[in-house]
Structure formats: C-alpha cells, structure tokens
C-alpha cells in the first residue's frame, strides 16, 4: 500500500469504487434537482406556468428531496468513506457494510423519487402530516436514512481496529470528524425513523385511522435541525481537513477542531423546536429554552471562522504577506477547489447571521414561513454546503479517476457562477420574505393584491439568480463528464495527492478527553432529555385528537 505521509494513505480501487458510486447518485440528484429549481424560480416569478401533468408542487417536492436529502447525504457519505479509508488505511471486508448502506439508500431514493414524479407524494421534503402520501414514499425515505447507519457501522468497526493497533494515540482527525458527524446524525435520525416507521407508514397503508399531527412535527424537527448540521459538518470536514492541505499549512489547532465537533454533537440535537415557534401545543417556556440552546450552537461556528482565517494568515505569512488585503490577495484563487471553498465560507457569514435572527422568536414571527426562510436555507445548504462539495469535486475527481480536470477554466467559472447566482437569488428571497411573500406558493396574485404585486421585482431577480446557478450546473456537468471520459493522464502518486487531509502541527495533540466520543454521545443524550422532556411530557398529558388526513393535490 502506498503511503503518502503520516496521515494519508492511497485508497484501494475497491474503496474508490464505493466512493464513486455515492458521488454518481449525488450528481444525478444534483442535475435533476437543479433543473427543477430553475423552473420553480421562473414559475414563482409568474414567468412560466407548469402544466397540470407536471405541477409545481410535485416538482418542488422533487427539488427539495433530491437536493437537500439525496445529493447531500450521498455526497457526504461518499466523502466520509474517503476520509476514513485514507486516514485509517484499513482495506477490510467490512466494506460490505458500506455497500449494503449504499444499496439501501439507493433503493430508497429510487422508490421515493418514483412516487414523487408519479404525483403520489406532493408533500414537500418536510412531508407534514396529515398530507397523506403514498406509503412507498415513506418507505423510500426510511430506507435512505437507515442506509446511512450501515456506513457508520463500518467506520466504527474500522476505527476500532485502528485504535487497537495505535494504543494511546488520538483517532486521526478526519475520521474523528466523520464519526462525530454521523454519531450526531444517528441520534437525530432515530426521531424521523420513529415518525416514519411507527406513525406514517401504518397510517398511509390505512392500518390506523389517524395520526397525531403535532407529535409527527416534533419528531420531524428533532431530526430536521440536526440535519442541517449534518450538511454543515460535511462542509466543515473539507474546511478543517482539506483546506489547510490545499494551502500546504498545518491544521490551525487539532484540539480546537475536535472541541468544535464535540460541541456540535452536544448542541445540534436539542434545538428542533425553534422550527415550531408558531405551533400550538408547545409551551412558550420550552420555546425559550431551545432558543437559548440554539444560540449556543453558534459558538463552534465562531471557532471555525477564527481557525479558517488563522489558516489563511499562516499561508500568507509563508509568502511574506500580511494585512487583510495582503492575505486575501495572496490566496490561490486560480485553483477552482480553493476558490469555491473560500467563496462558500464567505456565503456562510450571511447564512450564520440570518440563522441567529431566525432563532429569536420575536423576529421569527415576522418571517416565519415566508420567502426569507427559503433565502436562508439557500445561503446555508445551497451556498456554503453545496458549493464546498462541488468545489471539493475538482480535487476528488482526479483522486478517484486518475485523470486531469477536463478544463480548469470552466471549473473556475463554475464556482463563481454558483457563488454569484446563489448570492443574488438568496438576497432576492430574503427581501421578498421581509415584504411578506409566503414560501411554497406556485404563483401569487391573491385576487390582484397590491401587496403581492410589490414582490414581483424580487421574484424576477431570484429567477435571474436561479438561471445563473443553472449555468453553473451546466459548467459542472461539462467538466465532470469531460474528465470522466478522457484518458488517464496523471500518475498514481499524483492522483492520490490530489485530495489529501492536512496534518496537525508537531506537538499539537488534543487532550485525551476530546477523543472520547462515547462520553460526548452520553452528554448529547442527556441534553436531549433536558430539552425535550418538558415538551413531550406536555404533549402526552394533553388530550390529542388523531387526524385522518387526506391527499390534497
């Protein structure tokens, strides 16, 4: 086995096949999902009207599921496989678990997507009961989620082997980040798994007459907010682990990186009720409690911002540049992977600020369920997360295929187009939302209302942003397929060096408590109990009506 340095080992072709399989599904979801996305911006701006046989809401459901759930989950799982294989270097037959997970996820995705496109599940990606979709949609969603558990099982197994052979050493940081993210994710998915398997599937088949609507929402958002940190930590794996390697500087601080991820394990989970500020049936004191916890989860992102600026400063110092403009000017903007990831970080500053606003229910009452929220998650998952993953592809592709990028110039254009398009679209959506435009509507005339007419210029601006994003996707597809179908032209060593993880500074070793994931998992569970015992106790002590539900599309 080829060893590159004391952190990175070349992956085997069997491992690369599994990773590439994940990316293949992710890219298929990206292409279909963004195509629907641009059609939606045009429909929303009243520029086109979708035909009845392919209506707006089935397209909107497909867009949300394919991009927010399928693209992200497959890409991050594939990337996480790479991080574990490359830094713990155990080619092992446990890869069968990874494949089992992949096929379950793929089967679930195909089932759910088929039902959506057939018009049997126009329930959007939050699938709020009692909108009643086909049971096969819910089964597909459950398989997509359960599949990821097998990937985690494989990494726990490999890490166990690694630890046995490296007593007293800290788990390699990339593997640690992956485990932290997927342990948090596993705890979160238990909520949605209970919702789907024990409540929605029996109800959709007609085995039970009704469903407890508020309970499904509480379980969904117990999962739904940690879901966004799952996306974010996928991007953070690249920001903390790969960005310093691109700049050839050590990790800013191994200890603080682990601390940030530990804080995410603990604080990502007990915050879901901030999505339910406007729901009845949850007392204001529980809403206040989870607001406080939500504000705390900002802290690890502040730590991340500091560490990344520190990394840039260290890179610039090697070139003898100092000062803000000296540092920014010295960075390798010509490298599409660097440029895309750096632009993604820039977008996250705005996403983070918006998130703090949303977390306060005083402000939430103004923008709840408006286009502001749509703008917010496009400048978080659509900007920072998706752009990081797409930019990382410009290094992953050579690493996985042994081929040079088809066009570096076009890859560079791709990341800038995505950045500009997403910034413009998201700004327009935020503005529209502040003016009162509700989210999730195919058009708005409201009987010729003057209020609604005032939203129109911003809808058109959002559609302009949507078109620029779609141009970025076309550029992405050209470079992707151009690279895949060209002949190999880099050596195996060169290819393996294309995507590596950064090393810690000599002497920078985290305290051993920071490596005890089991302990932090228990702390996370304890905090979930603190945050949710009250709301659940309140819920089960009230007389709640079960609702039969219906198909309203």
């Amino acid at each position, binding site marked *: 086995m080829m060893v590159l340095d004391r952190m990175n080992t070349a992956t085997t072709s069997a491992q690369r096949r599994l990773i590439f399989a994940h990316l293949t599904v992710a890219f298929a979801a990206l292409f279909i999902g963004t195509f629907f996305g641009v059609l939606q911006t045009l429909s929303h701006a009243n520029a086109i009207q979708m035909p009845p046989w392919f209506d707006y809401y089935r397209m909107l459901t497909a867009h949300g599921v394919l991009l927010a759930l399928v693209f992200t989950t497959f890409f991050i799982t594939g990337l996480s496989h790479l991080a574990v294989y490359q830094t713990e270097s155990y080619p092992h037959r446990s890869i069968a678990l990874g494949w089992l997970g992949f096929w379950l996820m793929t089967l679930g995705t195909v089932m759910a997507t088929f039902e959506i496109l057939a018009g049997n599940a126009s329930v959007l990606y939050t699938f709020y009961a009692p909108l009643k979709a086909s049971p096969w949609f819910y089964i597909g969603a459950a398989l997509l989620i359960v599949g990821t558990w097998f990937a985690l099982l494989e990494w726990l197994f490999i890490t166990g082997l690694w630890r046995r052979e490296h007593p007293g050493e800290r788990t390699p940081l990339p593997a640690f980040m992956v485990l932290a993210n997927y342990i948090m994710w596993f705890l979160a998915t238990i909520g949605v798994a209970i919702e789907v398997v024990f409540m929605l599937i029996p109800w959709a088949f007609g085995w039970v007459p009704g469903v407890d*609507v508020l309970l499904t929402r509480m379980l969904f958002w117990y999962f739904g907010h940690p879901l966004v940190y799952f996306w974010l930590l996928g991007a953070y794996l690249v920001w903390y682990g790969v960005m310093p390697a691109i700049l050839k500087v050590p990790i800013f601080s191994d200890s603080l990186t682990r601390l940030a991820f530990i804080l995410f394990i603990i604080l990502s989970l007990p915050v879901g009720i901030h999505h339910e500020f406007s729901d009845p049936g949850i007392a204001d004191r529980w809403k206040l409690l989870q607001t406080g916890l939500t504000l705390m989860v900002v802290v690890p992102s502040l730590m991340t911002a500091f560490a990344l600026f520190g990394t840039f400063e260290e890179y610039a110092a090697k070139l003898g540049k100092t000062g803000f403009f000296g540092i920014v000017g010295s960075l390798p903007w010509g490298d599409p992977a660097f440029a895309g990831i750096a632009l993604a970080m820039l977008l996250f500053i705005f996403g983070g600020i918006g998130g703090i606003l949303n977390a306060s229910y005083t402000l939430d009452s103004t923008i709840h369920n408006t286009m502001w929220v749509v703008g917010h998650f496009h400048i978080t998952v659509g900007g920072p997360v998706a752009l990081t993953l797409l930019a990382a592809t410009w290094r992953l592709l050579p690493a996985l295929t042994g081929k040079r990028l088809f066009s570096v110039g076009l890859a560079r254009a791709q990341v800038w187009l995505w950045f500009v398009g997403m910034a413009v679209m998201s700004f327009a959506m935020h503005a529209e939302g502040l003016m*009162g435009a509700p989210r999730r509507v195919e058009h708005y005339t409201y009987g010729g209302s003057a209020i609604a007419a005032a939203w129109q210029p911003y809808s058109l601006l959002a559609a302009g942003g949507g078109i620029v994003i779609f141009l970025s996707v076309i550029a992405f597809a050209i470079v992707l397929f151009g690279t895949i179908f060209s002949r190999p032209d880099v050596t195996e060593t060169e290819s393996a060096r294309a995507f590596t993880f950064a090393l810690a500074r000599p002497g920078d070793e985290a305290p051993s408590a920071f490596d005890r994931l089991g302990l932090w998992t228990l702390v996370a569970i304890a905090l979930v109990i603190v945050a949710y015992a009250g709301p659940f106790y309140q819920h089960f002590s009230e007389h709640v009506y079960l609702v039969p539900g219906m198909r309203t599309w």
Partner: protein
Amino acid sequence: MHIHRLEKIFLGLGVITLAAFFLILIALQVGESFKPPASSMTIDPTKVASTAPFDRPGLRKLPNGSYEAYYVGQVFFWRPSTLTVPLGAKVRFYVTSTDVVHGFLIEHTDVNLEVMPGWVSTATHVFRHSGDHLIVCDQYCGAGHADMFAHIVVK
C-alpha cells in the same frame, strides 16, 4: 491545548453578544411583552362545523370592549373570507383547521400561525391603521395553496 489570546477575545465577544440576545428574550417573556404563540386548546377536527364558536366563524365583541375573531381554514379557503374590524380594535384570533396544516399570516403584522387540525392557534393584534389587510395561507396545504386567502377590512 493552546488558545490564542485573540481567539479568546473573539469568542468572548461572540458569547457576550449571544447571551445579550438571550437575555432580551427572557426579559420579554418574563415581562409578558412578547411570547411566541403557544395555545394548548384542542378541538375535534371532524366536528369543527358543529363546535361553538367555530360553527359561526367571525368577529364577536367582548364585554371589556376587545374582540375575538374565529377562523376556520380548509382546502383551499378561510372562513370568514372578509371580516370588518373597527379601527383601533384589539382582536384575539382563534384559528383552526378541518383537514391539513395551514398557515395563518396577516400580511405586515406579527400574526403568523401554524394552523393544525385538532388544535386552536391564537394570537392578538391591535389594528391601528384603516384599510385592507391581506391574509394568506403560508403553510403548503395542497394544489390550491396559492389561492387560499382572505381579507380584513379595518374602518
């Protein structure tokens, strides 16, 4: 573990700012000046049409001079579709649904409620300006979601 001095200052300022945001919310809640909607009233969603006062949605005046407005949402309209409210009236809204989840947003106000079958959502608003207020459904409820709206006329 080494933490840079500047990082301590940076994180300290961040934590103080976040704590200040949280203290403001605590003060607003303790001082009863702003609370999120948190009604715990329930209603049998299959019997809304025969449950008073939702059997006759609309406005009623209380002895103390304030008002209560009862709204029913169902695919894809609100009842009442038009409500006339006196200028300066303080109105407590009670909103429920007979079928799926709807959203009750009175444009350009803080009244913004998730409306769930089986539950009654509540919010209060004082109408200080005369004219027409648009109410939209701001939670996806099905094919006709975009056409679900109503009006409040303040005069």
